[in-house]
């Protein structure tokens, strides 16, 4: 993480009342939207721990939906997120649940998009508006939204990671951090690459042509 700066102290500019339960919740919704890579149409949202207990009074539900609609934490339309979701054709269902051994401010999204994409996203709000995405579909991950990020689901075969890094290297993209996880040997694997530079569409297209690739998404850093 970068060193703390003056705008971490006087900031974020946000819609209240809570940096963790409101601003962080908007960012979680927004990250979930980016991971889905589609206009969300159905969202099953499970609130865990303090999100479930004090979420209502903090507008956590409104904030999560606002993020799913693409809003940022300082958007003054956040209090109207439910009406806007209805207008946008996004159906939301909330429930409280035990998501296991996770951070007290955790949420799980089960999302369906307009073009049929589906994604399950597990995330937590760790304070001061900072968030961590801890799961995508069945894979444990660790994303903070600080860097441009590439998330790819691919066949677990030798050389896939090398191909990805070769494409990035040729595009002069520097890798800040990279993690690979898989369900089991030879099955589907998930690779997360955090980079210093954004990927341009030409590079994304090259990555998309890799035959073993099941799905890939590029996620711009959250502001």
């Amino acid at each position, binding site marked *: 993480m970068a*060193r*703390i*700066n*003056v*705008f*971490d*102290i*006087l*900031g*974020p*500019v*946000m*819609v*209240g*009342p*809570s*940096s963790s339960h*409101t*601003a962080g919740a908007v960012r979680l919704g927004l990250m979930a939207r980016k991971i889905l890579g589609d206009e969300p149409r159905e969202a099953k949202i499970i609130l865990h721990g*303090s999100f479930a*207990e*004090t979420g*209502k*009074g*903090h*507008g956590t539900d*409104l904030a999560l939906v606002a993020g799913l609609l693409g809003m940022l934490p*300082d958007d*003054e339309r*956040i*209090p109207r997120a439910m009406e806007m979701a209805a207008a946008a054709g996004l159906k939301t269902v909330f429930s409280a649940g035990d998501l296991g051994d996770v951070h007290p401010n955790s949420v799980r999204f089960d999302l369906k998009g307009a073009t049929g994409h589906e994604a399950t996203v597990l995330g937590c709000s760790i*304070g*001061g*508006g900072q968030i961590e995405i801890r799961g995508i579909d069945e894979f444990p991950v660790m994303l903070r939204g600080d860097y441009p990020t590439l998330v790819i689901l691919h066949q677990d075969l030798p050389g896939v990671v090398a191909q990805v890094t070769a494409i990035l290297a040729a595009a002069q993209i520097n890798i800040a951090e990279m993690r690979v996880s898989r369900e089991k040997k030879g099955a589907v694997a998930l690779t997360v690459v955090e980079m210093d530079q954004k990927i341009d569409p030409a590079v994304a297209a090259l990555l998309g042509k890799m035959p073993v690739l099941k799905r890939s998404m590029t996620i711009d850093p959250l502001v």
Partner: protein
Amino acid sequence: MRSYMDLVQAANQQKKKIGRVVLQEQASELEKTAEELFERMRANLRVMYQAVETGLKKKEHSLSGLSGGDAVKVEQRRLNGQSLVGDRLSGAVARALAVAEVNAGMGKIVAAPTAGSCGVLPGVLLTVQESGNYPEEEVVLALFTAAGLGMVVAERATLAGAEGGCQAEIGSAAAMAAAAAVELAGGTPEETAHAAAITMKSFLGLVCDPVAGLVEVPCIKRNATAAVLALTGAEMALAGVKSAIPLDEVIDTMALIGRQLPCSLRETAQGGLAATPTARKIQLTLP
């Protein structure tokens, strides 16, 4: 930034205000121009002042129904010329309440340093600005002074109620506001440190005990009392009153006390006011 005394020394050596030293240091650290950072901070100041304006007009209540409408009451009494403590202090009280109420009502604010303590700096700074007719640029610089102190607190201690109790949130906000007020009013770098130290000492041990876990009771009113204590600390420091214990040591003490606080008094809504019979009753009535 490990030490506020280092900032004071740098300001004295360079014959600059602390705000200017912080701005230069951050420009080089973030690899941005000073102008760019200055304009971003100006935008933050305008959000703060907008929140004051909004909060002094609206009588709406928060989502929970626990709070709202108090800033308007105080402001009305002031405008009627009935204030007990005088125009300036009562203005600071109304404005700090206003911003904290806007926050509770899902309005736009600047976390300063946290959302729960967002009313203190705007309440204090707008009041001091009016007292001397200072231009907006001077107030923006004072925000860098406040932020510089906030960075020292973040490094030596914490700004999170969950870690250090309310002294870490409201206490830090008040200390930051006191230092900024002194610099805006023309005090020396040393005087900003004394103002912050005197102010923070008044908050040592203050626990974080939000009723029903919401940023409303007692948080909103503590923003107002903190604004007054910050102005009190500034008043003393500008008159040459010194803190016997230096600011950095006061901050270390705040950190130590924070670690000694039981978990029930650190934003868990398990102790303090949150555990009173009335708070329990309130909790049952919430949606």
